[in-house]
């Protein structure tokens, strides 16, 4: 049974009587204990997807899905309040810019204790406060903050960005979630801190069998930490498969370009030559191309690409392209370079 199964999720922005399809029929499924990466350029709708999952989008966004199952429960049949209650119990989310996500006027301790569900506590109400306090200290230890007393009494602006992200993870862990959605948790962080945060997430995954949906724009960093990867471009589903499949033999021209654009793939280039990139930039929401949105930038685009491609499945490796790079049979690894 899948932990999460979403089919054809669309997110629309209603703005001045204009309807803009920001996320166009994206499917996503996750198994228990899996670490799935969602990769795409900024503006490809990854964060929107994550926020739609947790249900924290504003009123101006309209979310629609054909199927939305959570551990076998059809969430589309539940009322909004029931859905919210179920999801907020099982799904937690951490955001980019952790410092902006903590209330600047409330101390860390207060923000951490209020996230602890009162159903976890035992005893009478006068004992609750103490229990909450000790639970908060335990949570801080879990995310690797040893100096808990100083941390609990301080305000967000007194901590560093990486510490704030740890606190955010601690808050997310307070409800003992089954799925943790991490929306670019290490954006604007140095390399050492980035590694620490990712190692923390990986250990949580291994020790507590917590599933993680890791959203990032950087394919190369997250390949070390994920089992499976979904690639998105401009709000459309591009490709999904195991990390080895995506990184080793990408089927979609866009994924190929992403893999090729990483610094390690460009190591053998002669000095002062141009890095491999796709021409152009991601289209703005007001002027989206019809059909496959990669069309104008795609090196393999043909006339058929004005119609949106359907998803084809090659042994669990899903791709949405009319002209995939290596169709059906797998090709040896040495042809990786130079095809695009």
């Amino acid at each position, binding site marked *: 049974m899948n932990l999460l199964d979403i089919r054809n999720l669309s997110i629309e922005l209603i703005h001045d009587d204009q309807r803009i399809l920001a996320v166009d029929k994206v499917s996503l499924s996750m198994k228990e204990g899996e670490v799935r990466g969602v990769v795409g350029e900024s503006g490809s709708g990854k964060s929107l997807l994550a*926020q739609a999952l*947790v249900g*924290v989008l*504003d009123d101006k966004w309209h979310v629609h899905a054909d199927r939305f199952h959570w551990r076998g429960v059809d969430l589309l049949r539940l009322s909004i309040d029931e859905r919210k209650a179920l999801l*907020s*119990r099982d799904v*937690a*989310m951490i*955001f980019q*810019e952790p410092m*902006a*996500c*903590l*209330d*600047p*006027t*409330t*101390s860390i301790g207060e923000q951490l204790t*209020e*996230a602890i*569900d009162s159903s976890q506590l035992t005893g009478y109400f006068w004992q609750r406060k103490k229990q909450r306090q000790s639970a908060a200290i335990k949570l801080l230890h879990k995310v690797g903050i040893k100096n808990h007393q100083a941390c609990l009494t301080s*305000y967000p*602006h*007194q901590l560093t960005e990486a510490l704030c992200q740890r606190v*955010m993870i601690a*808050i*997310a862990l*307070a*409800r003992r979630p089954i799925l943790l959605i991490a929306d670019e948790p290490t954006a604007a962080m140095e390399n050492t801190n980035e590694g620490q945060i990712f190692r923390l997430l990986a250990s949580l995954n291994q020790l507590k069998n917590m599933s993680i949906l890791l959203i990032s724009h950087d394919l190369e960093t997250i390949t070390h930490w994920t089992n499976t990867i979904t690639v998105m471009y401009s709000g459309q589903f591009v490709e999904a498969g195991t990390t080895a499949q995506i990184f080793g033999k990408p089927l979609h021209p866009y994924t190929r370009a992403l893999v090729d654009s990483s610094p390690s793939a460009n190591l053998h280039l002669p000095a002062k030559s141009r890095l491999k990139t796709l021409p152009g930039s991601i289209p703005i929401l007001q002027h989206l191309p019809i059909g496959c949105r990669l069309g104008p930038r795609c090196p393999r685009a043909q006339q058929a690409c004005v119609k949106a491609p359907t998803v084809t499945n090659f042994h669990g490796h899903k791709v949405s392209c009319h002209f995939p790079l290596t169709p059906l049979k797998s090709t040896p690894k040495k042809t990786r370079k130079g095809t695009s």
Partner: protein
Amino acid sequence: MLIFTLRRLSLFFFTMLLLTLLSFSLNFLFPGETIINLTGAINATPSQLIEINEAYQTHRNIFWQYITYLKHIANGDLGLSMASQSSISTEIVTLLPATIELSLVALYIAMLVGIPLGFIAAIKHSKLTDNLILSISMLGYSIPVFWLGLLAILTFSISLGWFPSAGQISLLFEIKPVTGIQFIDILLSDSPYKWQAFSDATAHIILPACVIAVAPTTIFIRLARTSMIEVLDTSYIRAASAKGLTFQQIIFRHAIRNSLIKIIRHVGLQFANLITIAMVTEVIFSWPGIGRWLIESIYQRDYTAIESGLLVLSCFIFVVHILTDFIYAALNPLARGNKYGAR
């Protein structure tokens, strides 16, 4: 916190210095003789004039004149009123508490009504409630205060007879002034009719205070609404809802405090506006406050009184301003103490 307090005190000191400089220069700008404007001694005999000139050191240069003027102010000597020939400082001491009382009650009403209404409007953003509150606040803001005051007297004291139309307290009650603030004096007095006096004073203050409060209330509604909308749009509110708090918890634990911080700053600024409205209202309701006294002095060309009245009123506004700064610091941890890396 000590440094914060010291900074505010030094700001107070230098602003007061500038204010005295302004009021000192007014003596030269008003028509008539400078020394008469300064002291208000219009009926002085030549021998008295020589004495006054000696006291204010008019033979020395303007800097020393200013220093002597400061010394006189520091000793509580603001000169004589040109109209009544009585000491201005004693008049101010008896009149100022009434204005403080009236304006603080009005500010309290304005905040108590305006801020929650603004929050409700923001929570029901672009729905019927929001539009209703906004249009009422627009209406309240556009009514001129003198007309509103007369209208209030006409309806509530003449046709309905609920509240008295003028004065601070009925003449029947004899309250000995101790602090000057009427309510405290009533509570301190040992008159057997203490509570009757208290309710009578309350009935007297309600109408003028409400009239003064109308315009600031509408401003607070707008301020509270915009700041709440801003706060509700921030990422920490989204993060709070992602961690499973209910909407009420988010509003009461996180949103209200953060939007109050943004409003408190403006309360001090709005207070100057409120005092202006209070001056007009004091005339309409014959409130024995400093505003009415100041307007009467303007009618009578009582330059000495105008100058000292302005000085005292602006000093009072500034004190309120500093007090709101302290409340702001108490609410906002970012304003207290050192900034990160600022040492």
